[in-house]
């Protein structure tokens, strides 16, 4: 058969991330980790702030990992959309549940 055995259209260009880019991503992630630890260990008097900032920094880290390491930046846009939908769904579960607990 002359049919192509690949369903992947040929025109799709594969993006190859360089080693240097991967290394820069790691440095960014390590910096963010240092910031979280420093804030939580040495900024104990900012307690009310630290849960929020810790989660915020964690989310930034997650976005960096997903965007660069997990290749979302170069993949089809549908993957980014799906990830967003799943994230929104989970956040809504958490928010709806906490609404109930906060009003008890």
């Amino acid at each position: 058969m002359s049919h192509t055995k690949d369903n992947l259209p040929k025109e799709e260009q594969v993006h190859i991330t360089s080693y240097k880019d991967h290394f820069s991503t790691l440095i960014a992630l390590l910096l963010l980790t240092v910031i979280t630890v420093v804030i939580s260990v040495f900024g104990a008097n900012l307690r009310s702030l630290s849960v929020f900032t810790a989660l915020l920094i964690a989310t930034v880290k997650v976005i960096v990992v997903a965007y660069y390491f997990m290749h979302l930046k170069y993949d089809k846009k549908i993957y980014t959309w799906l990830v967003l939908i799943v994230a929104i769904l989970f956040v809504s579960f958490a928010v709806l549940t906490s609404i109930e607990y906060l009003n008890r």
Partner: protein
Amino acid sequence: MTSTALNLNYLQAKKGIFSWIFSVDHKRIGLLYLYSLITFFLVGATLGVLMRLELLNPGKDLFEAQTYNQIFTMHGVIMIFLFIIPSIPAVFGNFFLPIMLGTDDVSFPRLNLLSWWIYIIGAIMALSTLLFGDGPADTGWTFYAPYSVKTGTNVTMSVLAAFVLGFSSILTGLNFIVTIHRLKTPGMTFLKMPLFAWALYATSWIQLLATPIIGITLLMIVAERVFGVGLFDPSIGGDPILYQHLFWIYSHPAVYIMALPAFGIISELLPTFSNRTIFGYKAIAFSSLAIAFVGYFVWGHHMFTSGMSGPARIIYSIMTFLVAIPTAIKVFNWVATLYKGSIDVQPPLLYALGFIFQFMIGGLSGLVLGALATDIHLHDTYFVVGHFHYVMFGGTGFAFFGALHYWYPKIWGRMYNKLVANIAFFILFIGFNMLYFPMMIAGLMGMPRRYYDYLPEFHLPNMISTFGSWVLAIGLLLMLGNLIAGFRRKREKIARNPWGTGITLEWQTLSPPPVANFDRMPVLPKDGPYDYDHKPEIKE
């Protein structure tokens, strides 16, 4: 133009039990599911008839209260996890989704087989509680904490079975989503997909994104039983309402896992037997997604009387009423499809009409339960039992039977006796309504659910209900017997399009289909899947 090897259909291609249970052919896997599902359905139905027998008269008739508790739990677990959640996607989705998309299999055929095996393992685990351990669970299929972490019965095994079955459900959903994205035949876009495929697409997303939550929740029940920590037990710091939240975060969307595929079936049956295009294709397609999406945010309506906070109850009640909108859109479109169609009354159409009638009763009684004030009165009464069975059995169950009658000639290349099928439908229909309508009345009168005894004033509705269960059982046996007898009827050649008016791609191939599904390239109708004005001509 085709060689004989290609005309070999999927039933003849290979022989022997191993060619079935290790087959990666989506059609054979669909049938594996069908045969296992029907078996478990009959077990569950028998348990249901036994429950009705106990409730024929007030007081103790047949068994002890504890036995009754175990029977209704087993009935629920079997019917929910082993029958109705997999039902239409696993059987007809597996069999027809690839054919309707014009491809030869799902994206991951081996994963598909794995999911059937996981299903069987889960089923064996669920049924093993009958024989091993301290007896089957007596908690109800909801496994509510703290009772489920304290009772001496074998809850651990039942819960693990539900966990394992969840994996099977997830894998099927995953497979369908990728198949729909990747394997549509050239020229078929999302908006030219049959509505059954749309329904399966929406369902698959729920299977994929809701099931993990119950998986982890059930694991927590097991952990609590094994380690005795206070995750959900209020006496050692846990919060039982949190269990209910997590349980319903899955189990409410799961209701749409059960219902959406049925909507898809009805959207296939009506155009075929009205011989005209579906009314409001896009409305039906997108309302499936809307139901799937909004359905994630209404779980709290199962917990109105659990001691939830007031504002939360109002939010959940409003969201519940929102789900009614896309559902009603579907019903209106179905009825509009029938309007001015040239209607051909065949057994599958009867099931579709039965579905619409019963699903309306089920759906509207759901609104009664979704309203805060009425729910306080009706919560945990037989009204809920009636509502639930109207939606699940009167809805999904009837759609399942309708699909079975609709695709029977395509699947097996035989035909059943249509007259007997019609008679069986009417017996089923009468039996069904006799069984479940009195339950709603008993519920309004205040009869609580899940008791093996009741006050004398509820005797009449219970008696009618039990008589109804006998009629229903006769109808079921007649229907199944007629379908089985169909295999033994003299072999006649079944045309590609036995109903004459089928328009989706499965009617362009042989009955039964060849191993590779098509013996020639399927032709799409010009404007969308239900374009009866430009129906491709089907040569034998």
